[in-house]
């Protein structure tokens, strides 16, 4: 990272009026030294801009303040005021004799109260940022006035969005969608874990409310049913993730090595054969495969016709066999991806490494173990971690193949091949136990996050990102 774009940009900045974070005095300083218009800007957004002739900018600030206030008055407050109780008025009925039917006395909807409260509270963040900016821009305008510098026109301000403040332009849209469709829903989900939103507390008919850590206590200590299921499913989730990751990785690499080996013809054809399986949607191919291996499926029927077996092999209904089968079938799904990815990297391995090994008379196996594998592991470390995490949450393969079955009598609503995610899914969709599912979701997150952090820190190939080129 010698002289790159950043340093040159900073050079430009230094010559200008303070506009960047590094040179900006603290907020209190701005308030204190920005003149009366800055004080007023903290209450009436954009006031300072108006006073200093930046009309459009001022109008934008003011409009956003009015917009926020209207939003809180007409929408937000109606929900936030009930956040602590999550509603107290339950749906009821009043019999209307005139027409002979009940009238619905609509109650409060705990779920919507929680959801929209989260949304409303989250809007405080942009409001705060706009407030800060209103004060800041008023201060800067004030400073410029004192220094006798012409105020930048609105057009000029906008233009900086394409260069100096380009990150704002690029990031704003992705950040908004990310907040609305990922971050807020997750906060909502986390909140649900502390409520009793289960099958017997379904809005709009029933209210639900805060219950503190009860759900977590149930999972870890109090409820033996949940406790047993959680322990068993967690263990299997890890066993599965390890086997699924390792088998796919090794087999994919070996496949790529075989196809890439010099002297092997029709490389493209071989690769295409395997790639086709990626192109068939998983719910189709996995459904088919699970049908093939059913007790009365085509595999068993064929084996019976050949008189190899008398009773069907319980591929997917015997607990141990089912676990083995899902790992094997997962290879069918995942190996083509690994093959594609490793194909590119294998070509990057310096050829002289192999040449000297050849001269030493090393076998193909030795070459694989002492050259290919270490190199690959080094380069694909982060990829392995993401794959492992992906496998912990590998919903599709398990759900579509076995739906978690065969059911286990010791588990609550779960089977022997169930992963934590599929269990979570079943709890929400089949049993409407949202609170339990959310708690499990949080636990999955903690496990995954802790694991990833550890792994990332121990992986040699996570290079310092700026050390490229």
């Amino acid at each position: 990272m010698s002289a790159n774009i950043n340093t040159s940009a900073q050079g430009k900045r230094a010559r200008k009026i303070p506009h960047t974070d590094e040179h900006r005095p603290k907020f209190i300083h701005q308030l204190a030294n920005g003149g009366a218009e800055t004080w007023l800007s903290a209450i009436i957004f954009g006031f300072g801009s108006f006073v200093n002739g930046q009309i459009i900018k001022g109008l934008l600030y003011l409009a956003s303040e009015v917009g926020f206030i209207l939003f809180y008055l007409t929408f937000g407050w109606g929900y936030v005021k009930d956040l602590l109780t999550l509603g107290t008025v339950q749906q009821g009925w009043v019999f209307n004799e005139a027409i002979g039917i009940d009238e619905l006395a609509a109650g409060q909807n705990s779920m919507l109260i929680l959801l929209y409260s989260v949304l409303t509270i989250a809007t405080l963040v942009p409001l705060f940022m706009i407030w800060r900016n209103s004060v800041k821009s008023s201060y800067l305008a004030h400073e410029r006035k004192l220094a006798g510098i012409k105020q930048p026109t609105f057009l000029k301000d906008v233009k900086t969005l394409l260069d100096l403040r380009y990150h704002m332009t690029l990031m704003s849209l992705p950040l908004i969608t990310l907040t609305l469709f990922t971050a807020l829903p997750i906060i909502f989900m986390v909140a649900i874990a502390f409520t009793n939103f289960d099958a017997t507390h379904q809005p709009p008919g029933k209210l639900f409310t805060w219950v503190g850590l009860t759900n977590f206590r149930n999972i870890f200590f109090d409820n033996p049913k949940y406790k047993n299921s959680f322990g068993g499913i967690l263990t299997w989730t890890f066993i599965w993730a390890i086997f699924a990751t390792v088998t796919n990785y090794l087999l994919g690499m070996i496949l790529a090595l075989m196809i890439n080996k010099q002297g092997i013809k029709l490389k493209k054809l071989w690769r295409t054969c395997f790639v086709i399986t990626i192109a068939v949607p998983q719910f189709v191919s996995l459904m088919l495969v699970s049908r093939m291996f059913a007790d009365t499926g085509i595999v068993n029927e064929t084996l019976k016709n050949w008189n190899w077996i008398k009773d069907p092999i319980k591929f997917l209904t015997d607990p141990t066999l089912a676990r083995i089968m899902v790992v094997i079938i997962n290879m069918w799904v995942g190996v083509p991806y690994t093959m594609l990815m490793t194909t590119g990297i294998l070509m990057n391995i310096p050829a002289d490494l192999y040449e000297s090994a050849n001269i030493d008379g090393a076998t193909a196996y030795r070459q694989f173990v002492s050259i290919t594998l270490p190199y690959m592991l080094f380069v694909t470390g982060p990829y392995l971690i993401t794959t492992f995490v992906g496998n912990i949450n590998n919903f599709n393969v398990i759900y579509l193949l076995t739906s978690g079955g065969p059911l286990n009598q010791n588990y609550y609503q779960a089977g022997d091949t169930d992963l934590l995610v599929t269990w979570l899914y079943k709890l929400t969709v089949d049993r409407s136990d949202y609170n339990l599912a959310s708690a499990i979701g949080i636990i999955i997150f903690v496990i995954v996050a802790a694991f990833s952090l550890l792994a990332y820190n121990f992986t040699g190939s996570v290079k310092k990102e700026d050390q490229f080129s």
Partner: protein
Amino acid sequence: MKNLRKIVSVVLACVLMMSAVSALADKVTLKVWGSNDDQKVLGELIEEFKAANPDTEWDISLGVVGEPDARARYQEDPAAAADVFAFANDQLIDLVNSGALRRITLNLDQIAAANTAGSIESATLDGTLYGYPKSADNGYFMYYDKSVFTEEDVKTLDGMLKKANEAGKKVFMDLSNGWYIASFFLGAGGQLTVDENGKQVCDFNNANGLAAAEAIKAFAADPAFLTGDDSVLVGMFGTTIAAGVSGTWNATVIAEKLGENYAACALPTFTCGGEQVPMASFIGTKVVGVNSQTAAPLQAFQLAEFITNEAAQVKFFEQRELGPTNIAAASNPAVLENIALAALSAQGVNGVSQKLVLGGYWTPAEAFGLAMENKSTEDLQSLLDKMVAQIVE
């Protein structure tokens, strides 16, 4: 205070009257959910309903949500769910508990008089009727191949298995399914009810239950036993399968496959602790309910009543062979001659209402059935204890 309440209710009534009147002029939008197989009949019934009520401008749409899925699909978003929907009556308690259904107050006496007492009871909770009975067919019995079994053979399960083994054929029953496996437990005198707190009560792990479990184990271990889902039953009936436990919804297909060897009867007896005990079965109905969140309750009630009345049930029987709950429709000679429905009503003697089965029963029962199919060597009593512990929560 009392006066205030009166005033409020009068005002409310006025508003409602006005809205009811203005509704005549406005367009009424309703959505109906029914199973895929019912779509054609429902479509025709809706057209008839529109023709019978020409004063209103109707916009009635029809969605495919089968009776078994109604509760789950409803709870995803009650406000977006159908105004009028059909459900299996074992979901009644859950639906009422979550405030999903409007109680029925209009034409109560006529409805009660027109339908069989059992079907009305199946849609009633604490003395309140929550749905219009649509069909009485949510039960199961035995289909069999006359060329393999005599009428004497099908009286006992042991007799059937013996004959099937001799012929190299299979007797089908989906034991890894709480609905079917209950047949043994209930036959042995097991209780599956709900206590006053709304909790499930189950005694399948007592001595009777153990005797039933032993019978299940023996059945599952028999070479002639075959399990699977409906697609297996339908696919192999007539070739591999010579007898199978199922319900009326498969009647047409099985009749087609067996041709003149098609027959059906009540479930056989099984050996329970040395005695022959008849297998019981769940008896359920399909019921049409009105969504509590509907914007047009009056019209929704009207429509729900219309698609479950005598004419509608006759139509459902004629096109779909659904067993009527309507007394007049059920006395139709064609209904009485129907082989599958006759078997269903013969089985009715040993029927147990499915209304008091809560959602938590199915998965543990299925897990137990699966253990039996997998020929688990674990102690039966401990398996039963585990199952009951899960069921009663």
